[in-house]
């Protein structure tokens, strides 16, 4: 066998480390890191700072691994959608096999290392999260049902629950409500995006609610989930991790979110096209602030409690 045949690669350019890093969906990872860290820090059990660092690192790595597995499975539709055409596989930088290998290897590593760094419960929750995102959401539901986002949102909702499990070794009403907050937040967040990015999902034949049931149904769904979200958000204020900062934040953000959802519900596609989906875009932007503000407020209350300034509302 010649030297050339051994080392020749089908792709044009040699993949760099940053291409493999891009497979881990760094932007999604930043949300995972933030929410997992908050879940860990607001828990009533103190954790050694080094173990906080390693545990959050391995949770992030597990999230990244599931991102790589998602890109491996979805490479065909990523090539069609404008938003995803620059991802490493459709861009021809990394092969599908490499993404699969990296995803599987990092999944195993992250789960085992988290179990060692924290405890078995946290490791098991991370393993379930990866399984849920890759098998239940990516492989099964995403291309099958318009409720894909609703159920798939659960995968993104697990990190604060895992963070809480790192500290406490278990699951409680607080961690379930943190999970529920992200879980119920995800559908209105993504459906607002789908309203003004419709053609992308349409071409890739991903059954988004906007494609299968139309914009009016999607607008009704956004309002319904936003009402449910407000109830969940306020419920968290009255648990042991809630406090004045969280309650104030929840009142303000839910009021703004409800007003946004109401405005979206009141208008139709013709009105939306007239102002280039301005209301939907504002709602989507607000949704990012909504989640960030809620988790930041939880941190602020944890800090207040640690300084003995406020004992919480529960």
């Amino acid at each position, binding site marked *: 066998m010649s030297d050339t045949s051994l080392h020749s690669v089908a792709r044009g350019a*040699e993949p760099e*480390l940053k291409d493999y890093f891009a497979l881990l969906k760094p932007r999604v990872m930043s949300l995972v890191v933030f929410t997992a860290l908050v879940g860990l820090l607001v828990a009533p059990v103190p954790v050694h700072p080094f173990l906080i660092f390693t545990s959050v690192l391995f949770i992030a790595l597990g999230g990244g691994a599931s991102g790589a597995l998602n890109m491996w499975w979805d490479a065909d539709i990523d090539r069609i959608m404008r938003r995803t055409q620059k991802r490493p596989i459709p861009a021809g930088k990394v092969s599908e096999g490499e993404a699969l290998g990296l995803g599987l290897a990092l999944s195993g590593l992250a789960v085992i290392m988290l179990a060692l*760094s924290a405890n078995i419960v946290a490791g098991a929750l991370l393993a379930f999260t990866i399984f849920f995102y890759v098998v239940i959401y990516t492989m099964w539901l995403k291309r099958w049902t318009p409720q894909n986002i609703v159920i798939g949102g659960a995968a993104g909702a697990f990190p604060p629950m895992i963070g809480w499990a790192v500290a406490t070794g278990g699951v409680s009403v607080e961690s379930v409500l943190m999970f529920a907050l992200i879980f119920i937040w995800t559908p209105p967040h993504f459906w607002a995006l789908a309203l003004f990015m419709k053609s992308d999902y349409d071409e890739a034949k991903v059954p988004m609610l906007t494609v299968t049931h139309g914009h009016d149904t999607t607008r009704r769904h956004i309002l319904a989930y936003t009402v449910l979200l407000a109830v969940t958000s306020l419920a968290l204020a009255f648990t042991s991790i809630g406090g004045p900062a969280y309650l104030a934040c929840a009142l303000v953000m839910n009021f703004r979110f409800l007003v946004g959802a109401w405005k979206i519900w009141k208008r139709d596609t013709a009105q939306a096209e007239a102002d280039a989906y301005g209301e939907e875009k504002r709602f989507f932007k607000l949704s990012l602030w909504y989640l960030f503000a809620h988790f930041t407020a939880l941190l602020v209350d944890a800090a207040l409690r640690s300084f003995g300034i406020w004992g919480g509302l529960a």
Partner: protein
Amino acid sequence: MIRATHEIHDRRRGRNFGLGLILIAFVGIVFGMTIVKVGGGQDVLGTGMINQEAGQ
């Protein structure tokens, strides 16, 4: 023909260097975790540093 340095080594130098750093960091993390988990505040390495700190 097998040469000591193939051009693939040059092409992948940056990648290999990065991977090396990641592996070193991983070893550091495992070492740190071991110290924290096994030590639990005890002076496992027998350096006396923890006792000195406690005495301060």
